[in-house]
């Protein structure tokens, strides 16, 4: 917790540069909601922020168990931040299980706010404690604020017409009120949200607001333990503009809609529910008026097939899933590839293999994206770096799909999809349109006529007079588009399909260095959601004069044309990844470089400190 001296300028509040708060409780305690509301208020206060929702796969695991603990971490600051923070300064633990799971991450001297009403003998035992952690000295190194939150919440909502069960459910809002006072957050956005959410249940709305206000009033009145006071985190100095809080899911959805508009096409999403990709289906189905059709198919295969069918008929086909679902779609992706139809495949990666860790983040589907199909089936792969970056990456995926008549895989992950950050809303008019021109001229037409430059085939859609043709999975003749079993033709078609994708390397921005010099001792190469942690770690090292650079790859396949040369300018290359070493092997295979792997497969994002240690150990001394 970086602190400034308390001053009267801040209304007696102590100014902090940055704070990391983690809310933790039972799955049913509403921790994600509490975190989201705190995030909204914080965004509106003008702080930079990053969040990390971390929840179990079970919807409501048995109450009080450690495996049912759901957490939401927010890092907010008066300066530019890129990660949800390594360790929490403040832990709000709504029950013993939450304390048990998360206390180990709170550094010495950190603050722990506890709901003592949840610390019954039964709950303490359920969490796996043999002794009451409030009494056994295990919290001696922390500042503890122990509050009877249930009791105080019940008292606060006594006048609202709610059952005792409903009353107790408001305890997350009580805790939120407390935190709003401590960090000087405006309660109004939350009050507005409650009124909108519970418009039809005014008693529930009133109870939640009463709890929120009561928590706030309690903090204002009560004497807090020494070391804890009221804080203020000044606004971050950010580029002027209009901002909003955005998750990767929202940014991806808007980017896909924007991409389709720029292509002059309507968007068709065929999808099947799967964690953590379902939110994209939910978001897009609410954008119907923007030319979006969503179709919840009977399975993953039907989802991708319906999208291919829609592309065939002249829309932009889109399918979304996570690793296991993408595996099921594989054969159909091959069909889209060989029939050279545009298709965007969004993979919101999660921990694997198989069912793995559905709600945890990982970036272990890189091999699957780049190489995971039968036969020679190259296709472009793009990956986004931050929640907001999902917007641009989605547009790029659409651009490549329609320009090159190819399926494109867009890699996101569970962290990006759920995490929120303030986002400077771009001007959509700044995005260059890339309108699709359907073939209408029957003169000399056959379906595999190619553009000389891009090698993309021409796109004629059903309904066009005079251009009737047959597509299919059987190899087609290069010159006529008819079925062909000719061996030389297959060789030629395989080569042209590869050349088309390889050519994309010259149609994407040259690989830039995100932080540091264009050459030096060490290049830290990353891709996907590790961007923030790597960038911050490298930034700290660069500040200390170390010869380190951060190279972040958005175009994962094909690589930008200059990447090989850029990598050759560094003595050493490390590749931190949330997998067991995939990009490192793609780079080694492609460029014969001696890249070194740093892996973390815990289902959690990298900590900046972990990466900083890894970097320093290689360039210091």
């Amino acid at each position, binding site marked *: 917790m970086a602190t400034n001296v308390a001053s009267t300028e801040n209304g007696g509040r102590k100014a902090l540069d940055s704070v990391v708060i983690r809310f933790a409780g039972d799955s049913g305690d509403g921790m994600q909601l509490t975190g989201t509301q705190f995030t909204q208020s914080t965004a509106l206060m003008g702080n930079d922020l990053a969040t990390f929702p971390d929840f179990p796969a079970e919807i409501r695991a048995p109450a009080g168990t450690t495996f049912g603990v759901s957490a939401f971490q927010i890092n907010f600051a008066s300066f530019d931040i890129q990660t949800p923070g390594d360790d929490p300064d403040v832990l709000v633990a709504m029950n013993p299980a939450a304390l048990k799971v998360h206390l180990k991450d709170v550094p010495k001297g950190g603050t722990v706010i506890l709901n003592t009403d949840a610390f019954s003998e039964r709950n303490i035992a359920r969490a796996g404690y043999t002794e009451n952690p409030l009494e056994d000295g295990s919290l001696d190194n922390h500042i503890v604020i122990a509050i009877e939150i249930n009791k105080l919440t019940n008292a606060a909502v006594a006048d609202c017409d709610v059952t005792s069960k409903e009353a107790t459910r408001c305890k997350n809002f009580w805790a939120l009120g407390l935190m709003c006072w401590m960090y000087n957050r405006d309660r109004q956005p939350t009050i507005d949200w409650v009124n909108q959410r519970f418009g039809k249940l005014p008693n529930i709305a009133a109870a939640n607001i009463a709890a929120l206000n009561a928590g706030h009033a309690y903090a204002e009145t009560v004497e807090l333990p020494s070391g804890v006071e009221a804080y203020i985190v000044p606004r971050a100095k950010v580029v002027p503009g209009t901002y909003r*809080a955005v998750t990767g899911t929202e940014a991806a959805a808007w980017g896909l809609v924007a991409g389709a508009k720029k292509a002059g096409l309507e968007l068709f999403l065929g999808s099947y529910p799967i964690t953590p990709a379902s939110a994209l289906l939910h978001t897009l189905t609410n954008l119907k008026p923007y030319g979006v059709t969503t179709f919840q198919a009977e399975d993953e295969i039907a989802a991708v097939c319906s999208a291919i069918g829609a592309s065939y008929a002249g829309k932009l086909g889109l399918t979304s899933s996570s690793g296991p679902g993408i595996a099921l779609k594989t054969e159909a992706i091959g069909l889209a590839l060989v029939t050279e139809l545009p298709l965007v495949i969004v993979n919101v990666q999660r921990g694997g293999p198989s069912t793995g860790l559905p709600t945890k983040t990982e970036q272990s589907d890189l091999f699957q994206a780049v190489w995971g199909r039968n036969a020679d089936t190259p296709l472009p792969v793009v990956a986004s770096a931050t929640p907001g970056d999902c917007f641009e990456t989605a547009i790029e995926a659409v651009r490549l799909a329609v320009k090159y008549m190819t399926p494109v895989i867009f890699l996101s992950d569970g962290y990006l999809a759920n995490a929120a950050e303030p986002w400077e809303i771009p001007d959509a008019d700044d995005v260059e349109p890339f309108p699709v021109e359907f073939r209408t001229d029957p003169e000399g037409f056959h379906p595999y006529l190619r553009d000389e430059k891009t090698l993309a085939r021409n796109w004629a859609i059903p*309904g066009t007079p005079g251009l009737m043709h*047959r597509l*299919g999975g059987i190899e087609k003749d290069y010159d006529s588009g008819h079925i062909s079993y000719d061996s030389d033709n297959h060789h030629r078609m395989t080569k042209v399909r590869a050349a088309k994708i390889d050519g994309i390397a010259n149609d994407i921005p040259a690989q830039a260095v995100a932080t540091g010099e264009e050459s030096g001792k060490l290049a830290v190469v990353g891709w996907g959601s590790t961007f923030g942690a790597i960038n911050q770690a490298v930034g700290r090292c660069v500040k200390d004069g170390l010869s380190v650079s951060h190279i972040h790859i958005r175009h994962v396949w094909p690589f930008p044309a200059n990447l090989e040369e850029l990598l050759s300018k560094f003595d050493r290359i490390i590749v931190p990844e949330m997998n067991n070493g995939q990009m490192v092997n793609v780079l080694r295979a492609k460029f014969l470089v001696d890249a070194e792997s740093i892996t973390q497969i815990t289902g959690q994002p990298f900590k900046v400190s972990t990466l900083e240690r890894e970097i320093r150990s290689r360039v210091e001394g």
Partner: protein
Amino acid sequence: MNIETPVEALKPNDYASDQEVRWCPGCGDYAIIKGVHRTLAELQIPLEKLVFFSGIGCAARFPYYMASYGFHTIHGRAPALATGAKLANPDLDIWVVMGDGDALSIGGNHTMHAIRRNVDLNLLLFNNEIYGLTKGQYSPTSQLGTRSPSTPQGSVDAPLTALSLALGAGARFVARTFDTNQKQMPGVLKAAHAHKGASLVEIIQNCIVYNDGAFDGWTNKKVVSDNSISVEHGKPLIFGADSNKGLAKSDDGFGIQAVTIGENGVTEADILIHDETNKILAMMLADMKQPEFPVALGVLYNNPAKAFDEAVHEQLREVTEANPPGSLNDMLRKGRTWTVEEGA
């Protein structure tokens, strides 16, 4: 004086592509494609509006032999692709050609859901009770005890009845005919086409190489009248070379039985009248098997409901009218935003 040139009417042959047909000589598919060409010519469907989707198998080569748009997809998935295409462009006239392994085994899920959703597709199921293209393995419609390369001692799993499955899944239109029954086929196909929603037509097809004669017991000219019944809406369920057989209520009143008029006191008045909107009757007809019953042919069930694609587009229109879209910038700025001023 300007003389308007009449648009040349499309002839059956105009629906055939220039590609050489590669089915085995004598294959039932030849007869089926002929029936389809004739039907399309009778309907005068413009070639550019017509799309044939198929999966994998002998039947799935069908689109290559059509002069319309066509998409030879992957095994079992044709209904899923067709659903996407129909949602994308409801003006297209979409036909899906499937085999029994294609539609009922690997693609069973998609067949079931296309039917359940009632997507406006004409689903043609070529049922030859065998896997042809992979060289003769038994299929989910093969009769119990079918000897095949994968079941040398005979298959031990019970076959399914396509139309019963379809009705169970909520089909609004099911019909059956067979490859050489060219008198009946165009009428059945036209009824399927007229039905807005998923129309399943099972076309019994003889595989001359791997399952030759499988249906001779009721499709052969000598026995077809006695061993099959062609149903027509509003007409009595009568069959037989002498038109003296029929379907009547079973003695317990819960089912149907095949009877002979003039025997055991049965009169013409006992014969049931076909009602294509009666689902229970359709289910009984669909399930009729030799030798106890004649095999039911014609339109067994035709009871339209709103088509899925129509419902989807209706909802799209409604929600768009209620929430007119703005520009992309409006979309991005909807909800809570804040502005950071210069020098802030």
